[in-house]
């Protein structure tokens, strides 16, 4: 039976976050980047103890507060109001980044403009002449966390592939990405290149390859 590309339904942002959250085991210390990655926390149940870290010195970050329970001093790196879970703690910026740079985080999940099949990630500037480049903590996270996963749309809005042979945008870190969750598939970055773990129902490997610049492989 052949399935046409028209029959598939891409994951929503929430479904992408849910797919990634399913792979995070209890006990991991995790930093979630701004954008879709932030949604991952919504899909980790509170009884699976995963400790979320925010660059601005918050370890054990909880969900957004009710409107009438906002703590004006308690924000995350995306400058949104958050809560602190029981057992959470505060530290200063250098200690917070020591957690990142010292290899203490089990996982960081970032968004990206491009990921190459050698694990290179570009997620901070879209051209070498960006008027005011802004890197934030992305390079620290990409270089420092024990694992880097990327959560992003499979292609750019105009259909341009974001999973590429070599990044054309300025790099955030070379060879850092271990896994990519997109609205179409879950893909490991291995020594062979991109290895497809799963695809949304109704989309064939050939259809996925048509939306991917770099060569896709099957496991094994």
């Amino acid at each position, binding site marked *: 039976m052949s399935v046409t590309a028209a029959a598939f339904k891409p994951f929503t942002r929430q479904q992408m976050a849910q797919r990634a959250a399913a792979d995070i085991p209890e006990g991991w210390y995790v930093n979630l980047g701004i954008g879709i990655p932030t949604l991952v926390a919504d899909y980790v149940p509170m009884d699976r103890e995963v400790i979320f870290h925010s660059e601005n010195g918050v370890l054990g970050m909880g969900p957004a507060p009710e409107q009438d329970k906002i703590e004006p*001093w308690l924000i995350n790196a995306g400058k949104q109001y958050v809560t602190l879970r029981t057992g959470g703690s505060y530290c200063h910026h250098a200690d917070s980044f020591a957690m990142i740079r010292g290899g203490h985080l089990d996982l960081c999940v970032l968004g990206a403009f491009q990921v190459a099949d050698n694990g290179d990630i570009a997620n901070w500037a879209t051209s070498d002449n960006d008027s005011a480049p802004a890197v934030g*903590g992305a390079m620290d996270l990409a270089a420092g966390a024990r694992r880097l996963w990327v959560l992003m749309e499979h292609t750019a809005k105009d259909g341009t592939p974001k999973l590429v042979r070599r990044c054309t945008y*300025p790099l955030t870190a070379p060879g850092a990405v271990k896994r990519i969750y997109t609205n179409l598939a879950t893909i490991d970055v291995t020594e062979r290149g991109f290895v497809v773990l799963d695809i949304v129902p109704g989309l064939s490997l050939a259809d996925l390859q048509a939306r991917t610049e770099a060569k896709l492989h099957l496991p094994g």
Partner: protein
Amino acid sequence: MINKIVQTMAETMSGIRDGSVVLLGGFGAVGQPNALIEGLIEQGAKDLTVAANNAGVGHVGLARLMELGRVRKIICSFPRSSDPVVFETLYRAGKIELEIVPQGTLAERMRAAGAGVPAFFTATGVGTKMALGKESRDIGGRTYILEHALKGDVGLVEAWEADRWGNLTYKQAGRNFNPVVAMASDLTLVQAQHIRELGEIDPDHIVTPGIFVNRVLHVPYGDPAGF
């Protein structure tokens, strides 16, 4: 008797020279020493190099200092904000120099300055534009780049509590860059929400010991503004 608590903004700001390197605490609006930045605007020092995580919002505080042409160079990790109009305008016109530094490297450069470490190797930025022109070295099979300490002539800090010895506590995520700014600066100026008697702050709760602090001004402004 040691008393680092001063009574006026003018006294707090006295002695800041043109050409100073000024380190700012704060992340977004939280823990940002807004009153001291206003004091610096009033004080008049110019040709400043300012290091802060962000490059100002709207036309107030750091953005106002830049708009007045008093900042020669900004060192930051994230110059974008909800309203970066002043920085963007000056940057596009070539009227302000920008040094982009990864956020963790920025914090570590301050801590290094405070700890007497002149430079350090880090993996952050290796293989990127950040590595251009920097010394690199392979240590234990991994490549690192050399980053230099960032010392402040002046540091502006916001604390939750302070005593007359300059011991400080912070509130929640208001801590952020403030402790490393305090330790990295020759002249550390603090605005504190609450002034406590000596001994009233539990020694186990002091985050910045007074040795890193020069002057404290009582500024009980309440909660930080929203975003």
